[in-house]
């Protein structure tokens, strides 16, 4: 059976035959970049001080990362209750370790879906992380930091040392070195999009403590700016909760989470209780977007 009467031309050009028109002249073997070193996704989540929404978002993102089989460690720097450990169903003595007397040094506890939560860590303990906690951080594929309003760059430096942020060369960077007209057109398009209000990327090669930060509940852009000023040059994304989206002013929020019941009421985060809930789907998309921003797919590491 031959449905296509046209003869197949042996000289038909395939993509690899014409790629030299817009990429460099190097052979395909040389275009293969070395495998990038294993990297850990580091995300900070801050709130505007109302109702602990940021710890709710942090708990849901942790669940979504666990469902994507990403080994996740959660640092809860906000001592206010209900904290992330509470929402992830830790035992009371574990998630209250930072306030109860004689709770011992900071340690890692396994919560819902095996998520690792660092408990018992008052701000004074940040300077010296116990070896066991440091090992967990080193082995993690994702570190979530639930920040309190006073969390600053110095505290984050002790938890997540600045990464030597030198991304592996991408197709775009290789194309840039070729000075092709097509690449110039791409760049012009990207610049036009950035001018429409998208968050500006940090200067290329700038070391940063977190890969991204999320400002939760910030209905106006200035609240997000305050967080950004403390932890620059980390890019800060605004996430608006529920009906707050209707009152958002300034630039368009990065994400809008449909209003849902708190884990404090449900007994666990909505992402684990009802994965098909619109809010859970939103959290899932956010987790995937954060992983994609690091250049990794969802099927990454182990839990």
């Amino acid at each position, binding site marked *: 059976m031959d449905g296509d009467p046209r003869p197949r031309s042996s000289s038909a050009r395939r993509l690899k035959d014409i790629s030299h028109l817009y990429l460099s002249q190097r052979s395909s073997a040389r275009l293969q970049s070395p495998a990038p070193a294993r990297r850990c996704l580091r995300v900070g989540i801050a709130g505007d001080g*109302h*109702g602990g929404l940021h710890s709710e978002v942090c708990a849901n993102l942790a669940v979504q990362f666990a469902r994507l089989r990403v080994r996740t460690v959660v640092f809860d720097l906000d001592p*206010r209750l209900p904290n992330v450990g509470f929402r992830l169903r830790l035992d*009371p*003595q574990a998630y*209250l370790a930072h*306030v*109860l007397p004689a709770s011992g040094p900071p340690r890692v506890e396994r919560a819902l879906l095996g998520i690792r939560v660092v408990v018992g860590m008052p701000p004074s303990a940040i300077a010296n992380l116990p070896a066991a906690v440091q090992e967990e951080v080193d082995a993690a594929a994702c570190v979530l930091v639930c920040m309190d309003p006073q969390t600053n760059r110095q505290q984050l430096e002790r938890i997540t040392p600045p990464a030597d942020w030198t991304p592996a060369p991408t197709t775009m960077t290789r194309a840039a070195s070729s000075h092709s007209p097509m690449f110039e057109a791409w760049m012009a398009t990207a610049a036009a999009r950035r001018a429409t209000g998208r968050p500006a990327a940090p200067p290329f090669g700038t070391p940063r403590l977190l890969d991204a930060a999320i400002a939760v509940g910030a209905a106006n852009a200035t609240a997000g700016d305050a967080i950004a000023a403390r932890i620059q040059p980390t890019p800060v994304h605004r996430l608006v909760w529920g009906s707050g989206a209707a009152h958002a002013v300034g630039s368009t929020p990065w994400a809008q989470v449909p209003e849902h019941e*708190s884990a404090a009421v449900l007994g666990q985060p909505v992402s684990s209780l009802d994965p098909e809930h619109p809010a859970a789907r939103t959290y899932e998309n956010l987790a995937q977007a954060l992983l994609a921003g690091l250049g990794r797919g969802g099927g990454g590491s182990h839990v």
Partner: protein
Amino acid sequence: MSDLDGYLEDVRDLACAPLLRILCEQVQRLEPEPQSEIGAFGVRFRFDERVVCELSVFGALFIARVGPDQAVDYRVRDVATAAVALDHIVRVHAALRAAPAAHA
């Protein structure tokens, strides 16, 4: 000094005072903040006109009665019981917050 601080200062010599202070501080930091009330019963925290918990001191221990009906009580003399009581208080507060009172 608030009424609550004055009360905690009055009972500071009792054996249960450190745990009582921790519980009160954590309940006060809940958002939205419950209103505290001092009386012969001890300390009572209310949210939206409904009782979150009531803490009554009895020397070496204090009793935490939790919930709008104060149906569950914990005899707190150690850290483990204090943790369970505080856990219950946080859950009750969250439930009250999620279900606003029907005001006449």
